[in-house]
């Protein structure tokens, strides 16, 4: 499991320190890559957008104000806007995320335990709807707090909590149905 780095503090330091920028980059690159990769069919497009996002984030670090938003919230808006712009430019609808490319990083023991369920979870993830899937992704992969997700999506914290619970319940329901079928 990834250790949660305090990206907000790191981003503050990165404004004036090259070393901190490198650390920040190491922390955010996988997140950004993940974000674009699951949304784009083309790996090249995902690489291009990841590159653009990283550069844009670093170039705009000076403008980032940690008093107004957590770094993940700020970063999420940037990369999400890049994605929206990309689809607009290509005149394409936002594609569904492809969760088949996800891989587990659990320990060998966990891997055995989860191996049977992984496929079913992937399938269920594809069926819970974009909105709930995105929120789950923000919560679990971006490791954003509910408050940060609420700020990024401009919805209430209570709504985020509700959506996460409902998404998990839906996942569980889908998995139960799958196992009994």
């Amino acid at each position, binding site marked *: 499991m990834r250790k949660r780095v305090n990206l907000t503090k790191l981003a503050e330091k990165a404004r004036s320190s090259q070393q901190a920028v*490198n650390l920040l980059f190491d922390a955010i*690159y996988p997140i950004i890559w*993940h974000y674009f990769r699951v949304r784009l069919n083309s790996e090249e497009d995902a690489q291009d957008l990841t590159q653009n996002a990283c550069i844009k984030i670093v170039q705009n670090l000076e403008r980032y104000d940690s008093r107004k*938003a957590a770094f993940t919230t700020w970063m999420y808006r940037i990369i999400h806007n890049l994605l929206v712009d990309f689809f607009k430019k290509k005149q394409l609808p936002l594609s569904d995320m492809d969760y088949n490319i*996800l891989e587990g990083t659990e320990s060998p023991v966990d891997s055995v335990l989860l191996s049977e369920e992984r496929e079913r979870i992937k399938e269920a993830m594809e069926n819970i709807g974009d*909105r709930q899937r995105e929120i789950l992704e923000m*919560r679990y992969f971006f490791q954003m707090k509910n408050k940060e997700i609420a700020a990024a999506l401009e919805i209430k914290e209570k709504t985020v909590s509700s959506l996460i619970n409902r998404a998990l319940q839906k996942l569980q329901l889908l998995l139960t149905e799958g196992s009994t079928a």
Partner: protein
Amino acid sequence: MKRIDKYLRSISITYSNEHRDKVKDLVNKVYVPVKKESPSPFRILNYSLAGAFSLLLVIGISFYSFRFFSSGGSVAVNHETDFSMVDTESDDMDISDKRKDFEKELEVAEDRKVERTRLEEKTMESYDMVYDHVEEMDEPVIVESSSPDLYAMSHSDDGSALTTGRRSAFLSNRYTERIESQKITTSNNDEISHSLSMRKKTRNRTLQEQSFSSKEEGDMLEQYDSMRKTDNAYNNAYRQNQYVETQNRIFNSRQATGDFISSESYNTVVLYPNAATSGFFKIQSDSKTIIRDASDPVHPEEIVNYFGSSSGPLSGEQLQIEGTFDIEQVSIFMISIVPQVEMINPKLTVSFTESVKKYQLVGYELSDSPGKETSEETVENRLKQHDTPVILFKVDMDFNADSFGSAELTWEEPTTRSERVIRQEIVSSQVKNLENTSPVFRNALLGYMVADHVQKQSYSPVEITEYKDNFVDTVDRESEAEIEILLDTLEQNME
């Protein structure tokens, strides 16, 4: 559930190290460190305290070690050397790093100097152009406002008409197109003073920077501090220059857009103007209750209330989706006034001409300064510099009219507490396509349309889904969350 949770926490995607390293190189190339704050007396005090603390620690440990050995202790621990070395090294490294950082920042500052000079020249040239125009005007009157938006005005012979000159309009030689029947109540030469002081600042800064490189290192900290101040002045000038360019673009865009576009579909609903790419929009929850005749103007307190309002159909459970809506019924435009100063007690009054038959105040959007992703602040009866209050009206109007009315913004100037005023005409050329507005705004607008128009029939899940698919922006907002919850509830009820 635990396993789902565990799985979700463990997911990841493999990535190419080659691409990662390539991007990292690029990032390092584009990265420009922000200048650190100049060394303050407190920091120096910190270093002194750190040194003093190290010394005390050494003395203390030596003293107790001596007592320990004197008392016949069997274990010999020599902490003194370790502690003092660590502290001294740490201090030395810290200061050395800071020195390197400082030197690096100086290099960056030198590199930026060329760019600054270029922009300064451009700014000064802009001011000169404005002054030339003002000098050419008959009986020029300088408006009581430090906003560069309204820069100069000229009375007509009988004093009832006025040529309002935006600085951007002056620069593009089109200020005479702004002739409307307006009256300006007060006048002074704030603008000229402001501009002159700006010119003075930029020239002084140039002189200071020219002599910078020849200073001894001992004076560098002082110079560095001075440079920071001049940088701030430069940044202000730069922002102002950007503002002028933005205004020019908006102006040209409006000129090019031409006629007032009818609302055949939501993509062609006409809105004026929204230069910002981000911002937020709030809708008055009881806006349906304030439809009234054009002869009854919007009261200032109503609009002020909108600025501080945190409730609306999209922000809570007031959004009731109960039917279908016909988007073609809606004709909308907005009024925007762009203050360049902080305002206290802003009051916006809008009055319409006879061409407007009915209107409905819908809400407002607060656009933020360029470069920010979104704004989360509420205005609370106080506009900050660069904030753009945009008032949205739903109207039934004569589209052939040249002018639909005017908006007047009054506020108190923070320092002198004197009352200031900006007036702006609402004219048909001030149009902007909805596609160019922020996603937040579009969602809010569509949410409003739904809230306002769908209450005629009973809803069906299909209709709501169609609304969601067709009109809710891909940037998810509260409205979509609400709709999803509603849909789930519907599905459950149907089951």
